[in-house]
């Protein structure tokens, strides 16, 4: 189990290798990578400003990861979330889960992502040509949490 909150970019392939290299007991590795999209609501997005709550963010991510490890049979997990200014196409977040069983790896990764979306203290501001706009929380993200309760 390991989490990072960082400005720097990350390498998903290297993170997968770090989870699984030298091990022969893992059956399944699932990764999720979230990227900055260049369009939102029909408007062109140049970049995204990601603000977070230092201290609380690390706690929230560690709690989410611990909860996933308690609910599913995971052999390893990794969460990386960036903050700062990210250009369109840049990586924002990655989650990786390793398990003997594919269903556990998939469900745990989805669970972690659903919680990150609306329970980790990050706020996104989309930079358009002439201004910035705070991204509204989506009802769909709140609803996605309900399937795990």
């Amino acid at each position, binding site marked *: 189990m390991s989490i990072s909150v960082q400005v720097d970019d990350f390498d998903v392939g290297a993170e997968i290798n770090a989870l699984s290299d030298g091990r022969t007991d893992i059956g399944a590795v699932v990764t999720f990578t*979230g990227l900055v999209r260049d369009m939102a609501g029909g408007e062109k997005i140049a970049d995204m400003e990601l603000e977070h709550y230092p201290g609380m963010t690390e706690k929230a991510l560690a709690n989410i990861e611990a909860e996933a490890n308690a609910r599913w049979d995971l052999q390893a997990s990794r969460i990386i979330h960036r903050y700062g200014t990210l250009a369109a196409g840049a990586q924002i977040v990655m989650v990786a889960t390793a398990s003997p069983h594919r269903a556990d790896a998939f469900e745990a990764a989805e669970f972690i992502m659903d919680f990150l979306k*609306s329970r980790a203290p*990050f*706020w*996104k501001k989309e930079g358009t040509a002439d201004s910035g706009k705070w991204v509204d929380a989506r009802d769909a993200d709140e609803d996605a949490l309900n399937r795990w309760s």
Partner: protein
Amino acid sequence: MQVLYFAWVRERIGVPREDVETSAETVADLVNELRGREERYDLAFSDMSAIRVALDQELSDLHTSLAGVREVAFFPPMTGG
């Protein structure tokens, strides 16, 4: 007590954090006290359904007591991931 603001709450209030002297008993009391002080607080807290609160870095709610709390944070619904 340290009070922190994030995202558009921070922008409306104009500072990311400040030290607040208060004897408010609950989060709601603190919000009412701040709203009475200056218009920028009144504006930021005009729709409390759009505000989330954390006490000592744990998500909480308006009705929670501030007894023993050192850090209060106000922010919009989170949009991580």
